[in-house]
């Protein structure tokens, strides 16, 4: 089984992730999840998410991956029983207390070990396998050889991150946030102190340890070859546009690998799209080598925001699109549509009508609804973005 696994911070993002090609999503409930400040899912929303996914024959994994303090144990058993009752496909855990609670109470839940457990070797994987863990989300620090060794010697399902932000530290091995701000990094409150700047020995140069993002597009095929089962995108706090863009690009790369039509130009193009959307550079990090200074930033945050996401299609009927705006655009702009089960295409804006049918030159306001003429059908939830990269330039 090969799986493209997407993050989803709420129900809207979950639906977008599936529409744009994810095979599975991972989400958090209000409790016990490491993204405590994401919107997350109520019990009813969790149920709706699972029903939505299962209707599409897709999967939902729920993170129960905090490091538990004594008082966090209250209600854990009942919460896990609720998750089993709504038939989530697995829980992602880092604390052995959760595994113990599931096993001791015979709760029918598949267990995936979180990357928080920093698994790098097959003996650690075997320990958890013997406890009943079915899948391990490996440490982002795992190299190709580490991954292959674990697969060969355990046969476990392996899940690896392929895209998104990196911790500077081994996940789970950092409490800088706790110390600097009293916000608990291992219970969902990380303040990302590793993205701050520091003085070193009171020298004038700024010390920074911020890693660039992870991007494994170049190695997807190789990862499939060594037995990785699930390819995970980081980012439960990310926007619908980010999720749509990244999942759309990786879905296309996966499909091209499957049909044996992947070219280097496809990877280069996808990488440029993804990096611009993430506003950060990205690299393979630990897979092929030990990261050097080139895999880090040295001036703290270097994200350059853009307003590429222009709108989302609400409806397409009689050669007219109803679009909900996200960012400013105007007549004459060259844009691009990309969406569920469709190839991206270029579009020059010749005409914009407001909701009353009056011609306008500029769409200025986020959430404003406008009509655009179109020569083809595009599905609901298709996104319109500024055209920055042209695939022809990569051939």
């Amino acid at each position, binding site marked *: 089984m090969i799986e493209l696994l997407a993050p989803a911070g709420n129900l809207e993002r979950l639906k977008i992730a599936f529409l744009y090609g994810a095979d599975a999503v991972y989400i958090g409930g209000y409790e016990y999840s490491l993204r405590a400040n994401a919107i997350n899912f109520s019990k009813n929303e969790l149920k709706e998410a699972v029903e939505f996914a299962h209707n599409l024959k897709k999967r939902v994994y729920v993170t129960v991956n905090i490091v*538990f*303090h004594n008082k966090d144990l209250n209600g854990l058993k009942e919460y896990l029983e609720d998750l089993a009752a709504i038939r989530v496909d697995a829980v992602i855990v880092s604390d052995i207390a959760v595994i113990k609670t599931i096993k001791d109470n015979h709760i029918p839940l598949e267990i995936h070990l979180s990357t928080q457990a920093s698994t790098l070797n097959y*003996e650690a*994987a075997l320990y958890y396998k013997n406890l009943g863990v079915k899948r391990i989300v490996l440490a982002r620090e795992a190299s190709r050889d580490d991954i292959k060794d674990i697969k060969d010697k355990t046969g476990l399902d392996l899940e690896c991150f392929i895209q998104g932000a990196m911790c500077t530290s081994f996940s789970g091995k950092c409490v800088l946030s706790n*110390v600097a701000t009293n916000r608990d990094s291992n219970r969902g409150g990380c303040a990302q102190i590793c993205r701050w700047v*520091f003085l070193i*020995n009171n020298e004038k140069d700024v010390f920074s340890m911020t890693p660039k993002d992870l991007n494994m597009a170049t190695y997807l095929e190789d990862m499939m070859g060594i037995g990785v089962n699930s390819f995970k995108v980081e980012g439960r706090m990310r926007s619908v546009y980010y999720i749509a863009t990244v999942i759309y690009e990786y879905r296309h790369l996966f499909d091209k690998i499957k049909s044996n039509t992947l070219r280097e130009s496809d990877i280069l193009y996808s990488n440029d799209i993804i990096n611009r959307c993430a506003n950060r550079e990205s690299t393979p990090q630990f897979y092929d080598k030990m990261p050097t200074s080139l895999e880090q930033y040295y001036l703290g945050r270097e994200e350059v925001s853009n307003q590429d996401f222009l709108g989302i299609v609400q409806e397409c009927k009689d050669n007219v699109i109803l679009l909900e705006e996200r960012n400013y655009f105007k007549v004459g702009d060259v844009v691009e549509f990309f969406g569920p089960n469709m190839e991206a295409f270029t579009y020059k804006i010749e005409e914009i009508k407001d909701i009353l049918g009056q011609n306008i030159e500029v769409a200025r306001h986020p959430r404003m609804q406008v009509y655009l003429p179109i020569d083809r059908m595009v599905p609901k939830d298709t996104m319109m973005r500024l055209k920055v990269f042209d695939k022809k330039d990569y051939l």
Partner: protein
Amino acid sequence: MKNNYLLLVDNKNLISKLKEESNITFLFPIKDFTVGFNQAFTLDEIKEENAFIFVNRLLDHEGILAFKSLLKKLPSNIKGIVFDDIGVLEVLKTTPNSLVKILFLNHFNCNFVSINAYLEDCDSALVSTDITKEEVNTILEQASKPLVLYTFGHINIMYSRRKLITNYNEHFQTNAPLVSNLTNDLKQEFKILENKYGTVIYTGKPFNGLYMRGSKNVLYYLINTVFLSDEEVIDIINSSTDLTAKYDYTYLSENETIVRIKER
């Protein structure tokens, strides 16, 4: 009754000064298996009887094989092991040995259910440093075996596999030492130490948990001597008071950490 100290040492001189103390067990960071120490030891360099070895590196596919080789070569004066990697626990569980096995799963083991689960496979575990006094006490009450408490010393608060100082030096063409000090915008200070296996950031001040001495259900009180002078360590070992005037840093033991910025 005297407290049993487990003294994590990173210089040889200190050992000779304290070896006559009957209540001290020396814990040696092992070369190629540790991060965050000024000095690590080969097995040949450990001459003390009933010594413990310390393995806190997270081990990759080569590291775990190297650990298996190390285990086969352990001399008879090595009585126990303190370790972080769960792979080490699996190896120790499945390989015949008589070592006292203490799990130091840094930043985990914050509750009694987890600790008791691991205690099924090892002899003791280190209680997390990241919880309050009250939480520690509850764990001690509920634990199925005596535990180890981190009682004094700078605390390892971040462990990266990256060589952060080397990378910094490379980028700026500079020469910062591999043991350095960091200061952030809030004027908080940290210590940073790199070796070939990664980088550790420590608290700028040593945590003083001497108040925990005399607790029930404790196997050892761990003192980490990294960045402490020999005189400071001797003072701490010999003190009958908690030395709070001299060492006032209580780390996270007083106030519970915040989980959410705003509750829903």
